[in-house]
């Protein structure tokens, strides 16, 4: 029963787990997948899985995955009809979407004009205001950072917003260009510093002011839109567990919301996206204040890392929908049905991001070779990853190495399932965030749904957790060595293997000398 495919051949302009995820969608839809790779990824999983792979440059992203010309050339050479950008890299670069469009190829995502408009957070905030959706209280125009005569005006504006507030970059993301200001005295310096940082990171130094909402929950709505401009919400996700604006755990639906609150939230997202002329797929982000009110934050015009939890709960394949929407089809019956159920989800899904970071050392990156790699399986478990045992996690790229997702009937069951799945997970060779996620899955606070963007700092004590594990590890390794007779098996000239009361002889002198020699070898002076 052959079904026509949206495209014959698609180039996936990404690497790692998301490239693998998109290649899977291609193959399920009967499309051929073309991978691109840097020299660091020549034998990576996404290259092995693709039907065709094109080298695009050396390991640094600026010389490979960020090279618009090289990727377009690869697509044309390989005969691809469409390009899926994944997330990160070029996914939200309007210039890339435009280059794809101008090359006569299809960009699987919103059109360049929409990426451009929504990429400017000030534009997005004004769009929200125009349709009556409350954005986080703050300014709607770029702050005049180079005008000493307007300092009084901006200080007055800050006074009406209230402290503490945030200076944010209009073109921003990932916390860059962001400054927290607690009093008027710190504002001028924060504006200048934030603007400088934004200019160097994004080539645009525009900054604006936003009230700090704390404690806040981060809630976002998955959107799909077709060429007629019809936008639907597929459901919301809670991504409150973050560290320095990097999400660690995501779940769908957001816990603690009523059906009415869900409908309201989904409605706000659809309103903003419709006004912005959204096509294909995007995610509208909101903050939820302690009083329960939602404030619009921004729209991400790409497939999100955490799209999988929405797929699990809704039953919809979002990447597959993206391809059909990019091919010009109207919203599918499946998508419309999922949108109809979005406010009353039947199950609960949780995702944890396993990254190559050390959660006992403030999540510092830990690139290296993976020696052991056992992922969980069984009912209700989905793993999206792009590596295998023996692969290197390169310092050049994102630290995300696996997304472990679970689906169960309700949140409690999902947490139990997550705990079980993480118990089955085995990774050796590099430190990962697995211990942190095991902690989350056992946390009473998390189980009670006490989520906020401050949760990690308030609840996680990495060194203490590590100390317990280290002692168990030391004991196990010591017992193993005792049982294998390590101490008595190692002889270096002396009579180490004798009984405790063996008479001493000149062997002691040799033993002592060999000991001193070992010292010198270990600690040369």
């Amino acid at each position, binding site marked *: 029963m052959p079904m026509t495919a949206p495209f014959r051949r698609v180039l996936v302009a990404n690497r790692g787990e998301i490239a693998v995820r998109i290649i899977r969608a291609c193959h399920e839809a009967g499309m051929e997948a073309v991978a691109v790779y840097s020299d660091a990824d020549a034998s990576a999983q996404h290259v092995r899985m693709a039907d065709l792979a094109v080298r695009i440059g050396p390991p640094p992203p600026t010389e490979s995955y960020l090279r618009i010309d090289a990727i377009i050339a690869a697509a044309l050479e390989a005969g691809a009809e469409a390009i899926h950008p994944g997330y990160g890299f070029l996914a939200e670069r309007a210039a890339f979407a435009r280059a794809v469009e101008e090359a006569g190829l299809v960009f699987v995502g919103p059109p360049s004009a929409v990426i451009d408009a929504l990429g400017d957070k000030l534009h997005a905030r004004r769009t929200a205001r125009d349709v009556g959706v409350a954005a986080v209280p703050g300014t709607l125009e770029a702050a005049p950072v180079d005008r000493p005569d307007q300092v009084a005006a901006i200080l007055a504006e800050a006074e009406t917003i209230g402290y503490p507030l945030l200076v944010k970059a209009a073109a921003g993301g990932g916390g860059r260009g962001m400054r927290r200001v607690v009093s008027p005295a710190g504002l001028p310096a924060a504006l200048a510093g934030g603007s400088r940082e934004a200019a160097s990171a994004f080539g645009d130094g525009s900054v604006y002011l936003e009230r700090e909402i704390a404690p806040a929950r981060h809630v976002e709505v998955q959107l799909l839109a077709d060429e007629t401009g019809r936008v639907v919400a597929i459901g919301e996700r809670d991504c409150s567990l973050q560290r320095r604006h990097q999400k660690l755990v995501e779940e769908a639906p957001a816990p603690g919301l009523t059906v009415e609150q869900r409908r309201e939230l989904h409605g706000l997202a659809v309103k903003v996206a419709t006004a912005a002329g959204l096509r294909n797929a995007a995610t509208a982000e909101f903050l939820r204040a302690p009083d329960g009110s939602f404030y619009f934050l921004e729209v991400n015009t790409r497939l999100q890392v955490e799209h999988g939890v929405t797929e699990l709960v809704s039953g919809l394949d979002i990447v597959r929908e993206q391809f059909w929407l990019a091919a010009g089809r109207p919203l599918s019956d499946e998508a419309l049905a999922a949108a109809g159920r979005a406010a009353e989800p039947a199950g609960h899904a949780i995702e944890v991001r396993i990254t190559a970071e*050390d959660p*006992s*050392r403030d999540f510092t990156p830990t690139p290296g070779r993976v*020696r*052991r790699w056992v992922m969980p399986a069984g009912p209700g478990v989905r793993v999206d990853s792009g590596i295998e045992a023996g692969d290197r996690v390169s310092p050049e790229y994102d630290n995300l190495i696996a997304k472990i997702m679970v689906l169960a009937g309700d949140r409690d069951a999902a947490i139990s399932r997550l705990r079980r799945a993480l118990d089955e*997970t085995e*990774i*050796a*060779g*590099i*430190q*990962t965030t697995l*211990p942190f*996620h*095991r902690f989350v899955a056992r946390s009473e606070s998390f189980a009670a749904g006490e989520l906020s963007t401050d949760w990690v700092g308030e609840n996680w004590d*990495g*060194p203490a*957790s*590590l*100390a*317990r*594990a*280290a*002692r*168990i*590890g*030391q*004991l*196990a*390794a*010591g*017992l*193993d*060595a*005792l*049982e294998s*007779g*390590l*101490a*008595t098996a*190692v002889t*270096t000239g002396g009579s*180490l*293997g004798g*009984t*405790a*009361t063996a008479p*001493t002889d000149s062997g*002691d*002198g040799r*033993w*002592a000398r*060999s*000991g*001193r020699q*070992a*010292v010198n*070898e*270990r*600690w040369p002076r």
Partner: protein
Amino acid sequence: MSSERPSTRVVDPRAVRVATAPATTAIEAAPIVLEPAAVPLAPASGERGGQVLIDGVPAGLRLDRRDAVHVVLVEGQGRETSWSPVIMLPLVPTAGPAIGVVRREVIVDGWRIEVEIESERRAALRERARRGGDETARAGPTEVRAIIPGQVLAVSIAPGDSVLAGQQLLVVEAMKMQNELRAPRDGVVSRVAVGPGRTIEVGDLLLVLE
């Protein structure tokens, strides 16, 4: 460098010292010395709880071996038993020739820990040799004190004797084991504070080395 240990550590020759490899984890865990107790260790199949000494203190602890990399550390007995799954992989030493030191990568609760295991006597000797060098430079006396309680069985030296680091000084029976006490450094015995048959407590002065 590592934590200071009493210079008179008297242990079973089968004892091992397990330390976390330097600079591989965020915490510097104190080294642990494991030695077999008078009761023999459980066989590899690990059916009954074995008795070992952890830093000289008896503990009910054993390993269940599942396969080449999976072991389970079993602590306690009966209803109090706790099982801790551990993944253990060999590691090739990456830095410097460390004779007699075995490295392992262990994974516990997702934490990756590199440990170094060596004969406790060897480790102690190495430390004594290092410290001996330091102390010879200072040329001060070294008081050798008991770190386990027991009974002195034999005294191998007398005041005025010259001894080399590692040379046997006393034999002490403790925890049903005969333990020999060796010189922490080169020196001359200036005083012997105990004789055969004497019962000693932790901290008692045994002898003084000049």
